[in-house]
């Protein structure tokens, strides 16, 4: 998944389409815990695969999530 494709999904959840948000702490982005669950569900749906890595719960930036998606 490219950064652009990842940000398209992010934009669906929080209307953020600026790649600079990739490195901003998630609390400042701002995402609450339900937003992160929705983002994870949207990514799972888009990729048709389960994102089960435990580090998904402790990600501090969108880039962390992006890297986990592509792991």
């Amino acid at each position: 998944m490219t950064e652009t494709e990842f940000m398209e999904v992010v934009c669906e959840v929080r209307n953020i389409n600026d790649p600079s948000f990739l490195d901003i702490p998630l609390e400042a982005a701002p995402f609450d815990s339900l937003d992160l669950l929705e983002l994870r569900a949207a990514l799972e749906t888009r990729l048709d695969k389960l994102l089960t890595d435990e580090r998904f719960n402790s990600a501090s930036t969108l880039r962390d999530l992006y890297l986990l998606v592509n792991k």
Partner: protein
Amino acid sequence: MTDTIIHLPQTDATGLSENWLFKHCGEMHWDHLCEAIGVSGVNSKEMRDDAGNRLYPTFVAIKGRYATPLCTVQMDQHFETTVKLNHFGRAFFHSTIAFKNNAARFDLEMLTTFVARNKQGLNELHQSLPSRNLVYNSEPLNAPPPILKLSRKLRHAELLEYDLMGHRFSLGEHDLGLQISFEPSPYIDYNGAGLLYFAAYPTIADTLERQLIVRHQLAETTRDWTVQSSTIARDVFYYRNLDLGKKLVATLKRFDRAGENVILHTLLADELDGMPLADIITAKKLVHG
């Protein structure tokens, strides 16, 4: 399909008890969810996240649309319940539940996720997910259900107007701001997990709205508000829980007459820190005496 006969436990002073209806449909939702993820029940030992924490089912939002007002339901009527359940990702389960017979129909849309406790005995919760080993056999949704998007916009105060059954109103302007404090009852409002039960939220709103309506003379005073009106639509957006023994504040933000209906919007918040617990938006049909 499940059959129910309406007896006294399913009723209250207004007709069919919406509190009971929420509990009944909530249990149907969880029964189907447990079946879909292959666990024997919400209390089963498999209902844990990968870290071993006990998972609790939690509601994100519920929409109720009642083709017939709750007050029209009579004793000994037979109803059937049908459930359609889908999942969105591993986190969300969405159901549409119909409780109906030839004379009446009540449709509920329910959206849930899972939480675990941060600390034993307290109701600070965090989102978590069932074990990755569990395989979901319900039909997946390929897009978030609209009720999830609506919940998100309300949480982030990104919605300027709300539409309930065609009645549009501003969420920020002309706020009545009528407030009342309340301690939910440990005996009827909390569940066995020590959590303020999802079905209690609309009942608490109804109870406190009635008191505010009397106190501020918002409706006629010759008859009790409970018999003047009957619920025909209910939207509940859940944000957080409340520790046992703590008080909440209800703020009646809107009380709009819309033809033969009244639209009410109440915010429940933790009295201690003001953090929102739920938005509850209701349409009640006026019943002529």
